């Protein structure tokens, strides 16, 4: 069916809110900015729910509304395509965004630039919606860059803080590395299929034989090259190795931003991209394996770092990277709907973890969990919802995270071969680590004695309802959102996978019911094991962590604490090397000594010669004039002599 006003308004409402707050916020609206922004995004939510209802009844919508760029054979439109995948994303984005808008009324109260914050939030929501609703690669890229811009602006919201300003630029620039590959992928799509519309491109794929091309001396299927280039974009946006470094630093932004952009929505755009382009990825086993392996390594890598971090937001940030790795892994084994399912449940429990962390930070005015402890009795709603979110992410039976994580692990196991088993093993190990670090955080933050001093302890109190109500709503999601995707071994069809099947297909599972129960049992067991281990280390034997940290002279601990020194490495290889090359080679040598030397040297030399020859003392211009006259004559001779022949 064709696009209607309902669909156009979904992104248009937040955009209008952005314009209103952006233009009138500073002078007129100021501390009332949340009304404009929140009402707009709530409106988008209502329209998204309406759209979901339509899509659940089997309708899809497609249409172009504007011709953006025409040049030669290239035609780029602004247009929307609403299918089950988009419908799910619309719900995720507008739900979390609305709750974050409400929460921020409390969290950002009294901040300077309050209106600016809401203007950015609206712009972000608009951009994210344009991204997921797009029907072509270029509009997707617009949304992609625009969410990146909002992320940059919001990370750097406290721009006079150097760390925040640096983190904002870092996020943008690291993402540009991914965009570089993504853009080349888009070019190749256009040169191969003559179009950048999903519909045309994906239709052209059926029955298409990918030619073999040579890339830097290696032979590869064209489709593999395209898929991997597009995947570069996903690696940047979804903070996968080796472009993960920006996300932990992004925690410099206000906490509601971390929940919305850096946990629930923007960072999942990479997963969405791979799922959206599944017809392309499915044609290349090489690309699929790469995706799966990158996802698996990222999830393990980030989980190990999360074990030892002391900043409450950084723990949750590494947890996000790790969970994003799960989603990417799912896509890599062809279980796109499992990846999207985890994206959807993760949005609830991870937004909840961040907003809960925000509530804690609001109370303690500190982010270091070493200075917390015993908060449970002071802020019960925050603590209980945080507990439930942590249980959910640890895969506690029947909670949302249990179903989505289990599906990924099962699909990895059942994807067959040694690779499948290995991916499952890694995934299971990550599940263990996840449970451990999540509950390390819980025990250090909410239990034991408060370590932040008596003075502070007096002032500890639960946050206001405008903060706790969004926590409670998200908590419902963290518990129940998984119930729409019960696994087939429970005796009924997986409704979520069924809904997405027209877009994402359904991979074949190589395994028996018994194996599926085994996989589920193991993941529950390791989850409980992790929680138990955290309880022992941080609840009972508080001497153990220090002794573990001192193992092997503390080397493993320091590597984890310093995030494997990846930032230091990049700093050296990319930033310092570029600046040093610019200063010491380009400025000093090529532009300076060589080119300037010639420009200044030749006239001076000829000048000296002419002085000797003629014994004349004239100004610099004389020298120039003399070489010119000489040169003109010489060149004239050459042109006439050689060219004329």
């Amino acid at each position, binding site marked *: 069916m064709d696009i209607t006003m309902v669909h156009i308004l979904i992104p248009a409402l937040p955009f209008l809110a952005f314009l209103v707050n952006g233009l009138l916020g500073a002078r007129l609206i100021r501390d009332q900015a949340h009304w404009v922004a929140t009402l707009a995004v709530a409106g988008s939510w209502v329209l998204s729910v309406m759209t979901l209802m339509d899509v659940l009844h089997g309708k899809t919508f497609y249409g172009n509304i504007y011709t953006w760029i025409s*040049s030669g054979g*290239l035609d780029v439109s602004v247009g929307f395509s609403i299918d089950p995948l988009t419908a799910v994303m619309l719900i995720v984005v507008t739900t979390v965004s609305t709750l974050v808008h409400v929460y921020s009324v409390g969290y950002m109260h009294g901040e300077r630039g309050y209106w600016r914050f809401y203007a950015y939030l609206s712009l972000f929501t608009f951009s994210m919606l344009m991204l997921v609703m797009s029907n072509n690669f270029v509009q997707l890229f617009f949304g992609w860059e625009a969410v990146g811009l909002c992320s*940059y602006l919001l990370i750097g919201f406290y721009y006079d803080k*150097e760390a925040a300003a*640096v983190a904002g630029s870092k996020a943008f620039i690291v993402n540009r590395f991914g965009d570089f590959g993504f853009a080349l992928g888009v070019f190749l799509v*256009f040169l191969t299929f003559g179009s950048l519309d999903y519909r045309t491109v994906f239709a052209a794929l059926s029955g298409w034989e990918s030619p073999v091309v040579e890339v830097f001396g290696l032979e590869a299927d064209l489709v593999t090259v395209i898929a991997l280039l597009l995947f570069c974009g996903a690696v940047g946006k979804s903070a996968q190795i080796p472009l993960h470094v920006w996300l932990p630093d992004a925690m410099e932004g206000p906490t509601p931003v971390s929940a919305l952009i850096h946990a629930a929505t923007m960072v999942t755009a990479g997963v969405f991209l791979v799922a959206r382009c599944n017809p392309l990825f499915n044609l290349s086993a090489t690309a699929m394996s790469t995706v799966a392996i990158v996802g698996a390594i990222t999830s393990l890598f980030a989980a190990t770092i999360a074990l030892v971090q002391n900043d409450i937001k950084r723990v949750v940030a590494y947890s996000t990277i790790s969970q994003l790795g799960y989603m990417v892994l799912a896509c890599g084994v062809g279980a796109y709907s499992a990846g999207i399912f985890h994206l959807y449940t993760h949005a609830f429990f991870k937004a909840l973890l961040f907003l809960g962390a925000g509530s804690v930070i609001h109370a303690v005015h500190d982010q270091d969990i070493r200075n917390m402890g015993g908060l449970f009795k002071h802020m019960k709603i925050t603590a209980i919802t945080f507990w439930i979110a942590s249980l959910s992410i640890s895969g506690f039976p029947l909670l949302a995270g249990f179903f989505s994580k289990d599906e990924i692990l099962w699909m990895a196991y059942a994807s067959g071969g040694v690779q499948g088993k290995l991916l499952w093993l890694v995934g299971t190990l990550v599940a263990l680590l996840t449970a451990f670090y999540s509950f390390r955080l819980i025990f250090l933050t909410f239990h034991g004695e408060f370590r932040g001093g008596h003075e502070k302890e007096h002032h500890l109190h639960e946050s206001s309802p405008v903060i706790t109500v969004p926590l409670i709503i998200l908590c419902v999601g963290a518990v129940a959102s998984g119930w729409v995707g019960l696994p087939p071994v429970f005796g009924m069809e997986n409704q979520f996978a069924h809904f997405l099947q027209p877009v994402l297909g359904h991979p074949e599972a190589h395994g028996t019911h018994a194996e599926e129960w085994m996989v589920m049992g193991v993941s529950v067991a390791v989850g409980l094991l992790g929680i138990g281990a955290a309880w022992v280390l941080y609840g009972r034997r508080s001497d153990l962590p220090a002794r573990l940290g001192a193992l092997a002279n503390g080397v493993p601990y320091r590597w984890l604490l310093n995030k494997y020194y990846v930032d230091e490495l990049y700093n050296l290889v990319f930033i310092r090397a*570029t600046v040093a090359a*610019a200063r010491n080679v380009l400025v000093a040598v090529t532009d300076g000594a060589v080119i300037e030397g010639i420009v200044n040297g030749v006239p001076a030399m000829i000048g000296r010669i002419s002085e000797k020859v003629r014994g004349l003392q004239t100004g610099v211009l004389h020298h120039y004039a003399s070489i010119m006259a000489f040169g003109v004559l010489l060149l004239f001779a050459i042109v006439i002599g050689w*060219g004329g022949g």
Partner: protein
Amino acid sequence: MTDLDSMIPNTLAYPILTVLTFLPIVGGLLLMLVPSSSHRLIRTSALGMTLLTFLLSLPLFTSFDKSTWMMQFTENRPWIEAWNINYSLGVDGISVLFVLLSTLVAILCVLISWTAIEQKVKEFHVAILIIEGAMIGVFCSLDLFLFYVFWEAMLIPMYLLIGIWGGPGRLYATIKFFLYTLVGSLLMLIGIITLYLKGGQTFSIPELMAQAPGFSVELQLTLWVAFFAAFAVKVPMFPVHTWLPDAHTEAPTAGSVILAAVLIKMGAYGFLRFSIPFFPGATQLMAVPMMALSVVAIVYGAVICYGQTDLKRLIAYSSVSHMGFVTLGIFALNTQGLEGGILQMLNHGVVTGGLFLMVGAVYERTHSREIAYYGGMARSLPVYAVFFMVLTLSAIGFPTTNGFIGEFLILLGGFARHKPLGVVAATGVILGAGYMLWLYRRVFFQETSENVSALQDLTGREIVAVLPMLIFVFWIGLYPNAFLGFMHASVEHLIAQVGQAEETLTLAQVLMGR
């Protein structure tokens, strides 16, 4: 194809191109009659003159026939009949937008200099007006001789602009600018004379477009190199770019804006108007080497930005990188590349012109170009910070800004023509984001420097001077077809012209004497 076939005479009530060219020049000469001390009258008259010129140029935008590649609004009358030189003017889809850009930029230059120029006010405005007329003449000339006259005529006031109203190092900068451009110009002059002699004793550009492609590849290549010298210096392409940072840094704001917005576009325009259609055989041979040189400029210009401490110098080097995109697109010789290249010429004028206007506005307050002098200006000058952000986003090719449309088309065209070069060129988008965001952070974020904490935000006059650039950023970014539409027919024609050339030879074969 003869001379008149490709010319659609002007049917407007006034000879528009003559008026646009000579109104500022005559106005400038009249301004000389005003007493030197009446600064206000001088400024107002100059503003009036540029505004009038701009208004009179608007029919080019509204009445231009986008369906044809032929020269429009043409005027033609004999000038020096003994040498078959004609006073011949016209515009097509390649040049028309630059005439409009010139008339717009001139207004902004007068506005931004309103309080910045206190010395020799009259002479300054005379120079600006003469430059404006000569620039328009360059873009409208359909006679090579006439073209050369305007090309040289605009340099003289430009030297004066830098040499008289420039910064402390102005003398060195002027001499270097003079040296570079004159060497290039003289080589081109030789080329023009040779063309005249070999091409049927005519200076008519449309006629030469019919004659010159018939030359032997060797002759084409020789002439190509002669023209290349002039155009490459102007663009400027690596390695003849080192005049630009000095000229930009030392020039007064209006001078930097003219340089960035219009003057350096003339090099790229020269490739489009002369090198490609006159010498299609040589162009085919040189296309890939030119793309390679462009890619070097993109990367080199971007990396060297990381070593800069001077605000204007950084923007000047970023110009080298951005103009590398322009020439890359042009020599991709396909629709997207050429249209992207032409659009990017316009974009670069808007964005870099805008950046120099902005830097000039704050330089007038602080008299410092040191990046380290600034910091935290988002707090003390919020409007200024927002304007600068928009221009920054355009410079780094953010979608919905004009920069994105240009870079996207150029990289697509370049990648289609030569994949490895396209890949290397695309690294420019990473490097560009790096130094521009670094600059933005250093100047606008972090602790507010004491130097800027009490500065006044943009004044109404300054906002009026910069706002047109911001409007163009989004106008082109959101509705590029309004501008690409001008180009389609002319670009297709250009591709047809170059496509007829024999492609069987390689550069090596020609150089080795086949």
